[in-house]
């Protein structure tokens, strides 16, 4: 009796929650499900495909669970069969080893395909030339440099919609993670390395940007706005900053890097090579020089696959040699020397 009441209560709660999900799912607030850029949209496709594949198994299992628990509950005049010694059936077990294997094989194939397709350092195919924004996570603020425009901002970025954006990311503080959910997934910002993330906004709008990885006391304040506008508005904005904002000097950067929170700021010029200096500052770092060179290279606008290879290498071969002994690392070192 108790059980039946409980089950009904649980079903009620579950259906309420499902309704809540469906209702909020339609609203704009669930930003990951409401992407505004090509990358975010493909990632959403992948989420939907993988969820659907999982539900193919999960839903029958849940139904089966409730059915079996209900049907085989102990009661005085039960009609269902009781077979205490039934413990094995090759046929059944083959079935349920195969079902998850099949699902996982399908999912794995899709995942591998998308992993290469959506590799964040891969340039987007687009007729427009990408805009470069150099991102530095500081204690507890974001510095954005526009090397081609020669301006910089703090905790705010603006860029034209329908133009690919090539983010180059590093950190001058504990690791953080750069995330604009409506444009696409995040990537870590790490000292001594220049990571790359290619995103695009399909339509103008104001998007939430987050520092996603915990980095200390005021980590919660590391949020920023990413504004996608028309090309004209973007150009006007750049001109506005050039005309009215102060310059960012080396000393100004040192000031900015002191731990603390910051308002939105803008600078009309940036010291030459600041981003590369931040990356190479941790120069003795494992493979640091490799990534430093990578960063310099694409600063000159190089999009070649080679540049990609050099600065993807650091994190990659490190992961590999964690997995397996000496030889790997040695090769890694050779590459860099």
């Amino acid at each position, binding site marked *: 009796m108790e059980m039946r009441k409980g089950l009904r209560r649980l079903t009620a709660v579950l259906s309420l929650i499902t309704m809540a999900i469906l209702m909020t799912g339609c609203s704009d607030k669930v930003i990951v499900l409401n992407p505004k850029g090509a990358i975010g949209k493909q990632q959403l496709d992948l989420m939907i495909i993988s969820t659907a594949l999982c539900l193919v198994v999960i839903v029958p299992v849940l139904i089966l669970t409730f059915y079996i628990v209900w049907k085989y509950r102990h009661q005085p005049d039960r009609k269902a069969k009781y077979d205490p010694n039934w413990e094995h059936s090759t046929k059944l077990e083959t079935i349920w080893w195969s079902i998850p294997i099949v699902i996982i094989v399908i999912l794995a194939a899709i995942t591998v395909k998308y992993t290469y397709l959506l590799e964040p350092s891969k340039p987007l195919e687009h007729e427009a030339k990408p805009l470069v924004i150099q991102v530095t996570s500081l204690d507890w603020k974001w510095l954005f440099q526009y090397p081609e425009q020669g301006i910089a901002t703090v905790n705010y970025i603006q860029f034209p919609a329908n133009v690919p954006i090539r983010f180059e990311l590093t950190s001058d503080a504990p690791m953080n993670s750069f995330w604009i959910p409506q444009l696409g997934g995040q990537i870590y910002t790490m000292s001594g390395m220049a990571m790359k993330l290619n995103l695009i906004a399909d339509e103008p709008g104001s998007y939430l940007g987050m520092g996603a990885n915990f980095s200390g006391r005021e980590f919660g304040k590391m949020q920023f706005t990413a504004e996608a506008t028309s090309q004209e508005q973007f150009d006007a904005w750049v001109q506005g900053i050039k005309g009215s904002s102060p310059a960012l000097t080396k000393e100004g950067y040192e000031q900015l890097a002191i731990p603390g929170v910051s308002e939105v700021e803008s600078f009309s010029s940036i010291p030459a090579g600041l981003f590369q200096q931040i990356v190479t500052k941790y120069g003795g770092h494992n493979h640091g020089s490799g990534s430093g060179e990578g960063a310099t290279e694409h600063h000159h606008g190089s999009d070649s696959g080679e540049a990609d290879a050099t600065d993807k290498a650091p994190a990659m071969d490190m992961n590999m040699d*964690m997995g397996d002994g000496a030889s790997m690392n040695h090769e890694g070192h050779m590459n860099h020397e």
Partner: protein
Amino acid sequence: MADNRNAHAHEGHHDLEALRMMGFWIFLITDCILFGTLFATYVVLNGNTAGGPTVSELFEMPGVIAETFILLTSSFTSGLAVLSMNKGNRKGLIGWLIVTALLGASFISLEITEFVKLVHEGAAISTSAQWSAFYTLVGTHGLHVSVGLVWMIAIMIQLGRHGINSVTRRKVNIISLYWHFLDVVWIFVFTIVYLMGVM
């Protein structure tokens, strides 16, 4: 103790001392992983000298080769100790253990001399990642050897008191196993740290 062990060893299927020997083997597996992790960190950080001295500049192979030779010999003498024990020769057993311990002690003193010299030449643990990893890996091995020394002395005293019985026999077997294990680890240290460092 050993004689009325039968009461515990029901149907003879778990002998207490054999049980302890097995536990020690499993402990050695965990120690393997410990050293494996340290070797991995060493290999990852190898070359990260941050502008400071490199290993090939400072390593002096004659001393290291002497250390290697001493430790290999001590592994051999610890084997001789076990052989004497199996013959029931307590004096021979204790004698070979003393030789082993003396060799171990000279290994440690050579290693300490090497460390002091390196520090004077400007390579301390805080100099760079390269040297942090070096001191930690080699030092962990040295710490293992030192613990082994104290333990070996304790066993010698117990052998003096109780003679060779099932308990002391197991203890000697275990310390000898431990000693061979440290020897094998040292061969890896010698190859990966020193040989590959100077080559």
